């Protein structure tokens, strides 16, 4: 199988895994927390990398996930106890942790196979360089990691659909029913952290945010049902991966960057042309109402004269 197939599959699996947990970030209006976590796991990744010397180890996933949870915890604590605004506490926390990661990389850059470009932008184009044999087929090892991640995320959302839904929609009702909104907040943040770390190598710290947020935000514009929103976000990830790959080929540019650009274009399209929430449809509806009112008023005026 050729490189194009593997690159698109990598992009799709990374995007779909991100979209599943990212949709709930969007629904909870915590998109920026996803941004923060995706950056703040960097020191965790570097430390784990320095300790184990490997990229795809389980301890690394867990270690970095801990940093993600730490981020969520510091943001919450600064906000609640420190009276700092939510966005300010996010800004302070993740830049600080990310900067530590940057220092660690620059300090040890000669000793480890890890550079700033890879961390920031990913290296999805090179997935086929590192393969393992599965039933006689040479499969990129990234596919195995991301495939596993996708299945885990799918199971997670499937099994805890009800809990994720109620804690996103009405956390105080959830609490009153004995469903801890705080616990589920951290469970979700843990999943976001793991997802971010696992997709890190393919798309980097910056573009992973596009994969977390754009599909969910776009899907929300297209549907009124949570299930359909999740399904659409998966399809949008697939479309972004395919479109992004060929855009990158045409422009001879960064593949991960092109995938993020395509997901942004898809969002803009949905914003204008969505049949349910699109700006255009709302304009048309509004105009129809205005015309109908005008007609009624015109009729009244005609009657009076």
């Amino acid at each position, binding site marked *: 199988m050729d490189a194009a197939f593997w690159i698109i599959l990598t992009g799709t699996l990374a995007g779909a895994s991100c979209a599943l947990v990212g949709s709930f970030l969007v*629904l909870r*209006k915590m998109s920026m927390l996803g941004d923060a976590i995706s950056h703040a796991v960097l020191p965790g990744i570097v430390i784990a990398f320095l300790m184990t010397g490997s990229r795809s180890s389980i301890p690394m996933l867990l270690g970095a996930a801990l940093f993600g949870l730490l981020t969520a915890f510091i943001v919450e604590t600064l906000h609640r106890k420190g*009276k700092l605004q939510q966005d300010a506490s996010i800004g302070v926390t993740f830049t600080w942790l990310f900067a530590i990661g940057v220092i660690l990389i620059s300090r040890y850059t000669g000793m480890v196979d890890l550079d700033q470009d890879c961390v920031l932008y990913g290296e999805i184009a090179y997935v086929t360089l590192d393969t393992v044999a599965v039933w006689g087929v040479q499969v990129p090892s990234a596919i195995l990691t991301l495939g596993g991640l996708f299945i885990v995320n799918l199971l997670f959302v499937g*099994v*805890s*659909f*009800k*809990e994720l*839904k*109620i804690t*996103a*929609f*009405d956390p*105080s*009702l*959830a*609490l*009153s*029913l*004995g*469903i801890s909104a705080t616990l589920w907040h951290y469970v979700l943040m843990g999943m976001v952290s793991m997802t971010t770390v696992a997709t890190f190598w393919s798309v980097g710290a910056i573009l992973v945010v596009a994969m977390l947020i754009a599909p969910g935000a776009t899907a*929300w514009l297209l*549907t*009124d*049902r*949570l299930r*359909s*929103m999740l399904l659409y976000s998966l399809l949008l990830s697939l479309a972004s991966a395919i479109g992004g790959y060929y855009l990158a080929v045409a422009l001879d540019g960064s593949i991960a960057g092109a995938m993020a650009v395509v997901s942004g274009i898809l969002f803009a399209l949905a914003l204008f042309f969505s049949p349910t929430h699109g700006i255009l449809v709302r304009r048309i509806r509004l105009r129809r109402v205005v015309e109908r009112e005008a007609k009624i008023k015109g009729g009244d005026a005609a009657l009076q004269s």
Partner: protein
Amino acid sequence: MKFRESLSGGKKSNQTRENISGSVSSLEVHDLTVSYHRRPVLWDIDFEMPEGKLVAIVGPNGAGKSTLIKAIMGLVPPASGYVKIFGQSLEDARPRVGYVPQRNSVDWDFPTNVLDVVLMGCYGRIGLFRRPRAADRDVATDALRQVGIADLAKRQISQLSGGQQQRVFIARALAQDVDLYLMDEPFVGVDAATEGAIIELLREMRRRGKTVVVVHHDLGTVRDYFDWVLLLNLRLVAFGPLEEVFTDTLLQQTYGGRLNILTEVGELMKKQDRGRELR
């Protein structure tokens, strides 16, 4: 007039005194203090509520009305004091108590429909990781019928009017089917028809022995709607049957100098002017 009749009828059948001395109180709050950033917002609240009452929590803005029911539900941590529900701790009594948050506390653009929101009332019963069954759906559909919006079951929630939104929340509470309800401002921003429908449902709940506690800010309707009143302004001013507690003197104490903003209660304004002269 009709309201008055049903109210007095309710009183006869409920027999206040027996409830106090006889069975367990539906709700006990003892020495409850809640502070926000070290500033107390509720101070030493202490009361016991009999079963089967329609109770209004009344007080000026910022008196801590919403905070009180949030503290009872464990949604805000108390600085001191404790709460008992039907003689049990909140954790043990959870299946018997329900909370109805303010309508504007949720995002009505959330991608879900009316029936799904009502189904959420059953989530506590359904249990962790399990899915709602057909029986839960029947309960939810029946609750929607009771609040008179069964035809809206499949409607996207962003398309509801304020009154319909509140009916959805009441339906969700009905689906929850508990013995003690705590409702935060269910009459705010709803149309007259909805207000009437809701108060009829609350009376029906009382007839079935439920206790319903409502944060209420319309002093003009307290006398018609409720049979017990809790007057609150940081401290508990008074708590008891309507005719004993909902008096000019006690309202004066509750609202203090701020009574004049409630223009709809003209007679109370007069009282306050007199109070100023005395001072």
